[in-house]
């Protein structure tokens, strides 16, 4: 009897956990949908609010002359894209398209926004992921080297974090380009999408990010160094480096993991600048040129996509959290 009841109890616990898990998942999905809908709406409204007339912009870009246009000239464009529909109708049409997975057609390139973004996405993701990996390497190396050391060393470490975190990406990018590509000639000037070309752009993203993560990791790191389990590890005869990497880093890295989720979004916006400086293709550059061309479907498409990446990144961060800190799994 006891055996059966304990099995039942375990079963009901499992059901309870599954229900809680299911509810948490449902809340997450709803939250994600709300975020995406908000981003899509904000992007749409921002574009509608831009001064000037979209049909004129479409015509002028095709013509290469910026001037006023007659209604007759603009009529085919207005018809083709439904630009004279009430804004609400345009909005519903747009949201309806999103629900069907249709991001619309570019005003300028006459092709589906999906194709356009798909073509550019890989280059940007490669850049941002390389940037994040590099920033982790820089941050871990620098914090491990300097945190909790004697006075001056430690101060220099913290100061470098602060300075790095505050470096403006445009300035940093130009500086790296000037020094390493133009002056020293170690890297190509026109990086393009090639593998060689990625290091300087990735560094431009990684250095401020490493500084930013370093700031939050450092305090935690120094706090952890004083914990009893660190002392006991040392007493077991573990070397300093091994203690730092194996025990301390694991505890101290949680804030940086959280920041990485945020960083994925931040580096994608940072890519806008970096792609311009280094003449790389990517969605950042696509976004800039689409804003310039008032190509609304492309702008909103990129915004929705970046929002989606944010959402996915945050889910991944939650998972990483539970993996690193096993207490979260049982609680």
């Amino acid at each position, binding site marked *: 009897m006891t055996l059966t009841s304990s099995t039942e109890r375990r079963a009901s616990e499992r059901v309870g956990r599954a229900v809680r898990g299911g509810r948490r998942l449902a809340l997450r999905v709803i939250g994600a949908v709300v975020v995406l809908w908000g981003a899509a709406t904000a992007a749409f409204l921002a574009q509608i609010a*831009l*001064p*000037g*007339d979209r049909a*004129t912009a479409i*015509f*002028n*870009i*095709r*013509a*290469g*002359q*910026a*001037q*006023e*246009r*007659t209604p007759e*000239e603009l009529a*085919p464009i207005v018809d083709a894209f439904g630009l004279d529909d009430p804004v609400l109708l345009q909005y519903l049409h747009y949201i309806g398209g999103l629900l069907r997975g249709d991001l619309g057609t570019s005003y*300028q*390139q*006459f*092709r589906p926004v999906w194709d*356009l973004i798909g*073509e*550019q996405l890989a280059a940007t993701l490669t850049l941002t992921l*390389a940037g994040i*990996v*590099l920033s*982790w*390497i820089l941050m871990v190396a620098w914090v491990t080297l300097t945190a909790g050391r004697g006075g001056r060393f430690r101060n220099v470490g913290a100061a470098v974090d602060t300075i790095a975190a505050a470096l403006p990406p445009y300035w940093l990018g130009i500086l790296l*380009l000037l020094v390493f*590509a*133009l002056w020293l000639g*170690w*890297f*190509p*000037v*026109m990086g*393009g*999408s090639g*593998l*060689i070309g990625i*290091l300087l752009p990735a560094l431009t993203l990684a250095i401020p990010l490493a500084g930013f993560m370093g700031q939050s990791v450092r305090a935690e790191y120094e706090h952890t160094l004083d914990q009893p389990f660190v002392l006991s590890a040392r007493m077991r005869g573990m070397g300093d480096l091994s203690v730092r990497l*194996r025990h301390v880093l*694991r505890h101290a890295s949680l804030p940086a993991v959280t920041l990485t989720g945020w960083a994925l979004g931040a580096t994608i916006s940072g890519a806008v600048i970096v*792609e311009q400086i280094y*003449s*790389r*293709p990517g969605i950042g*550059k696509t976004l800039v*040129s689409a*804003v*310039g*061309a*008032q190509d609304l479907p492309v702008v909103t498409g990129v915004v929705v996509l970046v929002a989606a990446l944010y959402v996915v990144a945050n889910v991944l961060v939650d998972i*990483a959290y539970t*993996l*690193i800190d*096993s207490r979260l799994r049982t609680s």
Partner: protein
Amino acid sequence: MASSRIRRTLTAASAAAMLSMLAACSQAAAAAPQDDDTIVYAHQQEPQCLFGGWIEQAYISYQFLDNLFSLDENGEAVPWLAEDWSRSEDGLTYTIDLQSGVSFTDGTPVDAEAVAYNFDYWVAGGNSTAQVWLGGYYESAEAIDDLTVEVHLSRPYTRFIENLTQSYFGIQSQHALETRTDEENCRAPIGSGAFVVDEWNRGENVILTRNDDYTSPPANARHDGPAYVKTIDWRFIPEGITRVSALKAGEADAIYDIPAVEWADVDEGGYELHKYVTPGRPQQVSFNTTRAPFDEEDVRKAFILSLDRKKIVEAVGYGVIPYEGNGAISRATPGYDEGAAERYAFDPDEANALLDAAGWDERDEQGYRVRDGERLEAVFPYDAGTIINADGASIFQAVQEQARETGFKVDLIPVAASDTWSGAYSTPDSYDLKAGYWTSVNAGILYINWRQSTEDNPNFANSAFYDDPELESIIEQANSAGDIDDQNALYGEAQEYIADHATSFGLYDRLSTLGVSPRLAGVWQEHAQGGPTFYDAHFVD
């Protein structure tokens, strides 16, 4: 054990990153000399489609579309797809004879029907610049037989054939235009040119590959048959300094638009420099003649007299950018009038006298002139980055400074691309000064820029909003004049008229410049707009 798994993954990830970086570095170090079959050309702006009415589109479509005629270095139209042409007595019918045996790269023939179709396609909006050139004159085009096209005009246009040499008039496959999607015709137009569009990696480059069956070079090309190089890697590099550095580092074989400040340095580096002064409307500033303060002719004159334009352009342009005094057409345009160009020299005393006489005789505490409590103020938006480059912006800043001396407050407003194209500063109530150029091969551009705007036939390209029947009539007579000397005299009269009424003033001539590596020979600038021609280009050791 989760922790060790994470650590392993982290270590693996960082190791992978390190490895790829090392690989990247060694690859950079071992970069072989460039492939002799590929020209790497760094251009500046990337268009949205490869064919259209913008000069950036003309530059690239020239590589893969042939025109009916080509302009030679003397400004004469010479055969290209067309062998010959003739004009009827009344000047209303042009008969154009095509070369036989030429095919588009989709295999369809370049015949009279396809050519006639292209005319109607441009006029229907397929090319908005071709459309304004033909507007007011073109009536119809018809195929008489396989290789003969007749173009009918509603009134004579003496330099009609010359106009057809700009790449806006590149001939495309009728079959491609009719059967393919807009997207396909945007991405890879089909012509009969020396190269074909192979691939467009947006944001990065266009790969053009040789048309091995090419038989139709223009009469002013330097060889026959297919091009020498197999591929052109046409990159888009917006930053001038990056383009120049790429040339110096040997990464690019040719680059477009060398910033004036880099010119001497590139020259000393042993690179071949090409400079083409664009004919047509120069970089000029027109006055909005419909509202105060520039609705008064004397105030317009005073503004021009306030400026030492020559000095400004020389200072900013390092002697590379030519000063242009003529507000109507540039010195590279046939029929250019020197008198109109020299009408206004720097004369602040005269400027002050004119302003005093016009009632702008008080100054406020900042030194700006005031009349009836109104400040002498002018809104001057300019299209930064799209139509006006960095050198142009510096020139406008100097204009602003100098005009301040005589008491003008100039509000210089850089306009971002999205506002530029949406026409944010294009209406009579939005600006006082407007800068801009418009390339053309002859003074017929005057008709486009100065024709009156009417209810039935508005002309928003008249950026001075200056509707003057007399000026329009002079220009129309010039366009239709049978004799070239008569025509030039009439175009001269129109330029004098524009100078007399001070409706616009010139600043500098727009340039099209190229820098070419000594490894690459045979690059030249085509004569209709100054874009690069790679058909004759080949590598030398």
